[in-house]
């Protein structure tokens, strides 16, 4: 208990503007599991960023692939002796390690972008619903209810069946199924914040509604929003992998972890486990590390647990 209270005591005597951030940081680093998750996540993001420079092979340059190297077990050398396939190869002689690096890149971009866009749309609609109220609130919240009443995977599948393949389309589909979570969260906290005095003060200064919503309301609704964001990024990555696995997400030309797992699935029955297993472990590592960070953030940012 004292360890938890210590940073707070400092907060009360320190500079109020920068202290909450530092306290959150200090709280966050109090958990070994969360720090481990953050470390793993940073490593994964770093690998995804520098994938073209650290991969032994460009897995999607078909001219570089050698069919003779197809379905080699982990640790085999290539037929020309140039590289060693530490994680084996798939049916087209693609180095699994390189394919996983590139796949992480796609998965993180799709997950991050779709959750990011959904956050922007959801936050704006949630703020409008809470601050303006009336008919717009009713309309927005009806839409939210409608969206949440149908399972996300079903809606995403319907959209992709209609729109077809592609990165932009899957991001669009994921934004459609995710915005409602953000809108509901923002509206919930904005309804509480709206009644506070600083909003009255801002209104008395005759600031525009847009300015009050974005500069005064939004910053105070951020903590729960950040938690929902981490959960939704992990959710988006899982959903994209699932849809790609089912063959209706990303096209075969886009390296994605779900597609790699699907490719290996047919070879698993014959004991060639590595084509599916390793991309699956990479996907798992990404999702678990994001969830660990998100779990800790939820605890740290929850005002009820601080007291």
């Amino acid at each position, binding site marked *: 208990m004292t360890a938890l209270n210590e940073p707070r005591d400092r907060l009360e005597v320190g500079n109020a503007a920068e202290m909450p951030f530092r306290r959150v940081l200090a709280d966050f680093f109090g958990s070994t599991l969360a720090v481990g998750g953050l470390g793993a996540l940073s490593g994964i993001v770093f690998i995804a960023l520098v994938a073209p420079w650290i991969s032994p092979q460009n897995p999607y340059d078909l001219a570089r692939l050698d069919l003779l190297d197809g379905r080699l077990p982990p640790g085999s050398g290539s037929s020309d002796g140039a590289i060693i396939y530490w994680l084996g190869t798939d049916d087209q002689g693609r180095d699994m390690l390189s394919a996983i690096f590139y796949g992480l890149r796609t998965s993180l971009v799709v997950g991050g972008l779709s959750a990011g866009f959904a956050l922007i749309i959801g936050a704006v609609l949630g703020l409008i619903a809470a601050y303006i109220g009336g008919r717009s609130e*009713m309309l927005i*919240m009806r839409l939210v*209810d*409608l969206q949440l*009443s*149908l*399972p996300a*995977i*079903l809606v995403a*599948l*319907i959209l992709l*069946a*209609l*729109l077809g393949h592609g990165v932009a389309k899957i991001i669009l589909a994921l934004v459609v199924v995710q915005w409602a979570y953000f809108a509901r969260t923002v509206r919930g906290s904005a309804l509480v914040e709206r009644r506070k005095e600083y909003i009255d003060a801002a209104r008395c200064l005759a600031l525009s509604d847009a300015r009050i919503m974005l500069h005064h309301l939004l910053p105070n609704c951020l903590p729960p929003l950040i938690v929902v964001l981490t959960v939704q990024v*992990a959710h988006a990555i*899982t959903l994209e*992998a*699932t849809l790609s*696995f*089912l*063959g*209706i997400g990303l096209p075969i030309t886009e390296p994605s972890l*779900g597609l790699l*797992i699907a490719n290996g*699935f047919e070879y*698993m*029955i014959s*004991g060639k*486990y590595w084509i*599916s*297993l390793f991309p*699956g472990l990479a*996907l*798992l590592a990404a*999702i*678990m590390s994001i*969830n660990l960070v998100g*779990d800790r953030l939820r605890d740290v940012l929850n005002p009820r647990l601080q007291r």
Partner: protein
Amino acid sequence: MTVFILRRLMQSAVVLVLMSVLVFLGVFAIGNPVDILISPQADQAEITRATAALGLDKPLWQQYFVFLANALGGNLGNSFVFNEPSLWLIAQRLPATLELAFSALLIAVVLGLPLGLYAGLKPDTTLARLIGAGSILGFSLPTFWVGIMLIMVFAVELGWLPSTGRGATVHVLGVGLSFLTWDGLKHLLLPAVNLSLSRMALVIRLGASGTREVVHMDYVKFAQAKGLRPSRIIRVHVLRNILIPIVTVLGLETGAVIAFSMVTETIFAWPGIGRLIISSITVLDRPVIVASLMMTVLLVVLINLLVDMLYSVLDPRVRHGEAPG
């Protein structure tokens, strides 16, 4: 009560109409069905005739109403691939999907509840921590990946259980059921466990947190003071009270189970609606895509409606405390 049910019915109808518009626009308006149905050598006159015959020269809203009228009459077109009415294809596969979904829910409750109860009663034991960690894993692991691992371990490496199909079925009132034969049961086990895992994680979490709250309640202390046997306290006083949120959430999750059975059915080659959806998308069998997606949405909406009505019967707070708007 009546008002509540009427309102829910209205909402469900709105969802269905919106979905039908979406599916109609997507499948019938984007891309021209004439191109698929007529040979590429056809001249302009033939194309015009085919377009008129299919009613595609009419305004879009008229086409939509024709589609809607046909759909309400139970005519959702014939499958390009099977050359059978799509509704018949769906009707044949519905029992398999429902059997899988309800087996998964059953497993989630039967295994999840005792585990959650234990984790809540003895939160400081190693086993309880393991259960907690397992439930977090159950949330995070993608369903399709768990399915693949189950096949790899139990079907490929150990060879204990079959990994594809439904096995032998018994026909009860014209409906094929797997769980009544030993062979069918063996086929059902892996897919059902796969589909149940994330729901089981949910039951464990709700059960554990509910139990931790309930054991400190006065009525539990009173029951202990009365000298009741622990098993009776748990069964009557703890279990009944933690069941309310679990039943609520499971009811809401039934739709998600139906939706996720698409994934499990594809992995385990389970002959249900989900597998039909995925395969019809892959081969672009448009009438079946439309029909199976619409029927799945209808199924989910109906289940949600049913669950809502059940609550209004079971829990008076829902019917009276319904917030306006």
